[in-house]
């Protein structure tokens, strides 16, 4: 199949060429060249990403004073223990977990459904693809503010629910309570994310073998059976990729919360990253903020490893 990665034999035309130009100079040049090309990018990566990460990790063990001339007191694991005993940290953790669960499942289900619909032949298909993808490329800041107005006390959502559909009294203060606030924030996450998973699934659907599909049809399989027995196994890798990326994205939710509820009222819609940000830049408590950042990183890392295991191919390989 064409979109399988090329097997190792095809990838290495090197031996024949190498034997012709014998001598250490060639070998040294040959092995150094790719590294030299990588060096500038890696240097930038090390300076702008790796070094700050290491530094933030170090800060998490101190009562960190931001000014270089002041001495920071070494606290050991105190910042971490403080987080574990901090009620507000757990509220933020609960909200983050809620957001992750509430947004990931709909994004996968809706994204896949839309991809299946747009995969088939239909008029204006490119138009719909663009429309579904549009939220993905719009600015988080802009759509967060739009959703804040939609979910305002006198906003469109209350109007629709109360005056048009008559399912509520139209008086819900969405952003004034923990769970209604999280629902509003999650609604934004889903709306903005469906287009992205749709795009990945659309690409994956191209790789579903037509021959297998035909064979299944000849065997009398219905649409649901074909989806379960042919499509799903074929897009398994994409499914795993989307899930892992969405979990990472879910734990990184920040801007929408910051702009829609500002963590309020009374910190009840705070998520891990807004809490971290407020500790570091609001209270200048960089040690504690760094500890929270490290904890978030560990959680995301652990969840990603678990998922990699879950989505391991039957033949033992990992998803790409």
């Amino acid at each position, binding site marked *: 199949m064409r979109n399988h990665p090329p097997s190792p034999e095809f990838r290495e035309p090197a031996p024949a060429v190498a034997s012709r130009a014998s001598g250490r100079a060639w070998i040294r040049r040959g092995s150094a060249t790719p590294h030299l090309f990588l060096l500038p990018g890696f240097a930038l990566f090390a300076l702008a990403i790796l070094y700050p990460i290491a530094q933030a990790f170090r800060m998490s063990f101190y009562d960190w004073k*931001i000014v270089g001339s002041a001495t920071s007191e070494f606290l050991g694991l105190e910042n971490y223990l403080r987080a574990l005993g901090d009620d507000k940290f757990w509220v933020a953790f609960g909200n983050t977990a809620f957001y992750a669960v509430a947004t990931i499942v709909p994004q996968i289900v809706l994204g896949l459904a839309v991809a299946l619909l747009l995969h088939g032949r239909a008029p204006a298909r490119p138009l719909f693809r663009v429309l579904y993808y549009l939220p993905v490329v719009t600015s988080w800041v802009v759509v967060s503010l739009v959703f804040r107005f939609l979910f*305002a006390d006198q906003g469109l959502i209350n109007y629709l629910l109360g005056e048009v559909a008559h399912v509520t009294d139209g008086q819900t203060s969405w952003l*004034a309570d923990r769970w209604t606030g999280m629902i509003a924030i999650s609604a934004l996450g889903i709306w903005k994310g469906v287009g992205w998973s749709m795009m990945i699934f659309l690409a994956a659907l191209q790789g579903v073998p037509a021959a297998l599909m035909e064979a299944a049809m000849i065997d009398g399989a219905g649409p649901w059976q074909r989806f379960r027995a042919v499509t799903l196994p074929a897009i398994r890798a994409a499914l795993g990729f989307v899930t892992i990326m969405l979990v990472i994205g879910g734990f990184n939710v920040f801007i929408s919360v910051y702009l829609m509820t500002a963590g309020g009222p009374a910190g009840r819609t705070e998520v891990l*990253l807004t809490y971290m940000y407020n500790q570091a830049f609001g209270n200048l408590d960089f040690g504690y903020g*760094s500890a929270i*950042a490290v904890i*978030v990183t560990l959680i995301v890392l652990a969840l990603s490893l678990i998922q990699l295991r879950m989505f391991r191919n039957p033949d033992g390989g990992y998803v790409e």
Partner: protein
Amino acid sequence: MKRYIRGTAAALATAALAVTGCSAGGSPTTGSPAGPGSMAPAEPITLTFWGSYGNGGNSAQQEILDNTLIPAFEASHAGVTVEYVDVPYDDLLQKLTTSAAAEELPDLVRADLGWVPRFADLGVLVPLSDVMPDFQQLADATFPGVLATNYFEGKYYGLPLDTNTRVLISNPDVLAKAGLDAPPATFDEFVALGNALKGSDVSLFADGGLGAWNLMPWIWSGGGDITDAELTTSSGVLDSDANVATLQMLVDLYTAGQISSGIIGNEGAVSTSEGLPNGNYATILDGPWMSGIWGDQFPDFEPVYSPVPAGPGGSVSVVGGEDIVLTASSKHQEAALEFIRFTQSEEFQLALVPTGQLTVIQALGDKQVELVPGLKVFTEQLGTAKNRLAITQGSEVDGILNEELTPAFEGTIGVREALTKAAARIDELLVG
């Protein structure tokens, strides 16, 4: 050199912290730590001055600064150039924080008054009361509540630059409908107006939170405070009978639907700036900048300004505004102090009044009202206005007040119990 590297490292790390939040959703803007102009040659001096005069598209202030005030200073101080760098207000604290970490602060900063204790505590500011021989003379000319914002642990780290305070702003149509020809002047009249509005779709009052900026006018006017004068304890002060009575008044009004849920942090509530002119709210507490906001959006709205309703403690509001501070890293201290002196002059102070900046000099109050009659109430209110707690953890105090008092407004906990819990948490900050 080693210190410099360490500072840069810290700045990078703080930037990384902010960036952790961005991989899925963009990042909050991280201020660049690079400060211009710190390597001026010995002879002609360049002073760098950071502020947010141009914030919110208010070009009027920055134009006066750039085109009138700074040239006037430069004309009278040969060889000194002042380079003003405008930073959006929302980014300024973060930019100052990262720059402090990298030890690349400018010479002068127009700092929000709440930031002065924090940066003084970090050791990046020069105590003006130590280095200016004429400090006392300059300080005595300013409003005491405004001057107090520069105080931290026995020293003054800046001088007030401009100020503002909150007064009661009312919607005249709503007052008329309730049968009043003047806004409520006392707590009793305030509650009475609420009763008169019962059954209508107008709420008596709206505010955007329960932090010190929001609550202190009520607490001080009610005869209470957050801590004792020496900043040693909050227990026994915040949960005093006077504060319980004041807060109970607000909670009762809230329960009766007379105060908007914006006060407990509902971002979906109709905002104060929109709800007052639209007649959703009868009154709000706010500052002199509101007339500028309404001038564009609600040109027909004629707000009524009056002092904060007086309680047992009188009519006492909260001081806002900016201070000018000198950084410890400045290489041109004398020239910078000269510029600070210039900011206290009549020329500087009055030039900015028409743009909505209130003067910090008491003696200029009358001239200010002559220039802009609408500032009369604000100028009078400033006479008694007070500063919030002079501690580094002002934002923590705001967080505690919001967290502990919100349940009291929602009715799940008593007012006294909520205040006692908040006081216990503030005690911990005062010890630390």
